């Protein structure tokens, strides 16, 4: 019986010691976690700041000024734009031209040819 009691008492002391060390470890972990949370917060603040900075640096006003100063490009004129279908058909023509010369209907050329032919027939020499 005595042995049992001693054993139980020993267990109790051991358990106390274990709980205490567990508590210390938990506190340490908690501090570490708090540090991490703070670091995370700092990083996320920094990220937000950088994002704002990038947006500020790429605002149209600034880009436009830089482009005017450094690039030798003219702004796109509306007439320079073509629909996607035209680009695709253009690509098709290029692909075709590798095999044999592409024959593209040219309305204006046809018109000029027609009128000059008519002029020739009409005796305007």
């Amino acid at each position, binding site marked *: *019986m*005595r042995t049992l009691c001693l054993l*139980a008492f020993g*267990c109790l002391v051991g*358990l106390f010691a274990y709980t205490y060390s567990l508590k210390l470890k938990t506190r340490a972990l*908690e501090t570490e*976690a*708090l540090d991490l*949370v*703070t670091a995370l*917060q700092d*990083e*996320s*603040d*920094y*990220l*937000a*700041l950088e*994002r*704002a*900075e990038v*947006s*500020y640096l*790429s*605002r*149209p*006003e600034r880009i*436009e000024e830089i482009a005017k100063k450094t690039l030798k490009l*003219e*702004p*796109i*004129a*509306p*007439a*320079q*734009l*073509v*629909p996607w279908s035209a680009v695709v058909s253009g690509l098709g023509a290029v692909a075709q031209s590798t095999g044999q010369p592409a024959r593209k*209907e*040219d*309305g*204006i050329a*046809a*018109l000029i040819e027609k009128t000059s032919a008519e002029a020739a027939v009409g005796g305007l020499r």
Partner: protein
Amino acid sequence: MATLASLCHRIGGSGSAARAAGNARRAQALLGLCFACGFIILSGRVIHYGAASNDMPILAVAASPSGLAKSRPDIVDRNGRLLATDIRVYWLAANPKLIVSADDAAEKIGALFPDLDQAALARKLRDRSSRFEWIKRGLTPKQADAVHALGIPALTLLPTNQRVYPAGNDAAHILGITNVDNEGRSGIEWYIDQKLAAQLQPASLAERPLVKLSLDLGVQHALAEELAHAMERYRAQAVLGLVLDVRNGEVLASASLPDFDPNRREQAAEQNRQNRVVTDVYELGSVFKSLTIAMALDKGVADRYETFDASPLAIGHFLLRDPHAGRQPMSVQDIFIHSSNTGAARIAMAAGMERQQQFLKSLGLFDKIETEAGTSPLPVFPKIWRPANAITVAYGHGIAVPPLLFASAMASLVNGGERIKPTFLLSEKGSDEKGDKVITPETSATMRDLMRLVVERGTGRRAAVAGIGVGGKTGTALKVKDGRYTHDVINSFVAAVPIDEPRYIVMVTIDEPKPEMAGRNNEASQNAAPTAGAIIKRIAPMLDILPTPRFDEAGATPYEQTAPREPQRSVLRKNPHEFGGFDQGYSAYSQPQHAPGPRYSWSYGR
């Protein structure tokens, strides 16, 4: 155990040792049971903690990311470009009780922030009765580090959030402003707090919800810049402009000048904060003729070729003159193209007051307009509609509406007759949802054609852009000052692009423009129209507006026939004003010169 046995002996009395021994055993068993229970409970707890899920334990000292000012959602444009965001800043405060040398501290702090008044700061810090004094708000992390490095223990840095607007002045009026506590005070910022506050609670600075606007930052900048050019060029008091999607009412750009930098809102004068597009009403002048003509066409009052008398018209004691109209009657089409006041007045008279009011009401021009960027005041219109009102409203006087409301009405005229509601948020309206029909698709098609003619050979010639089909209407309104009409004007141009199948309404209004040079007039055809043209030229590539084919290559025939000579031409030549034509290099990007349509010149422009 001996003690326990003696205890039992005392309790049980001397009568029976056996009973005492029995008691002792029972007590022992009871005690054992208690220990066992204790161990079982402890083991249970340990097992419970061990088996608990791996969630982060809730920390006793949870860091509050925004102690002083609340965090707000980010605002982005339709392409996701940042328009407004929060950054971490620090507020610097001091506890004068802890300061050793106030002058020394004030000098050190003053060296870091030259804008601070050092003497006042030293006075503040010398006040020993105080325990808390604000020194400076809005310190950047770098400045906060510098303050920290001073090593003055009495200084406290309080982290907080501050709203910044990376796009600067662009869209300042739409976004609105916040106060020092980061609460929305106007514009979208106010709307977010009022309407979206519950849905959008930010967790941290990096992970915040987004509010996506319908604005396009590129278009917005182009619009604001061209308007600024116009304001300078025509020495105007104010200019405003907007780009509106005619199909779903999304506002792609909206600018009102003079404007302000929302990052330095305290420096902005009160009148600069006014968003004229929404919160002001204007008498817009002849652009209203579009509504008058659309009403006449839609209600069957007249067709486009029917003629009306355009000679001077008596309204009570007042004679309404049209200096450029001849004695011959003008067709509805010509009244619109050349902007004849008397003609439009007679069309309105033919339609009748009832119909006119009903039509304007159906377009929502008598109601205030509520948008995310603010609510407009109630339009100003006659309470009792008299014949004189019907006549003046026909050419846009005697009725004052917010420009955004008018642009939405114009959108209905060109989009097939569907009413739209302007919005600054991305529209959730599906393509199959249809709004109320205001006019028939046929009337809408005729209106598009008429607007195209205005730019081809009417008052809007200088709004033409090479390669793009532009249609529009000019409007020159006399400005009211102290209750009287003056010689100052408010000029507008409302354009629809591409006019064959309009996608956008572009509206420009210039308040009190001066003639560009001596000898030129200051009508809308001379300033608002070229400004609108310059804007369209710049924004067309951004909005995928492709050039309108003018020539059918396969068929080798032009799509458009040249305009036939008209009988009015000889009459109209008398006009001393205006030498219309194409935009002659107004913008930084000058247009190629090429011959405009038939060059007969006539404009009343009012």
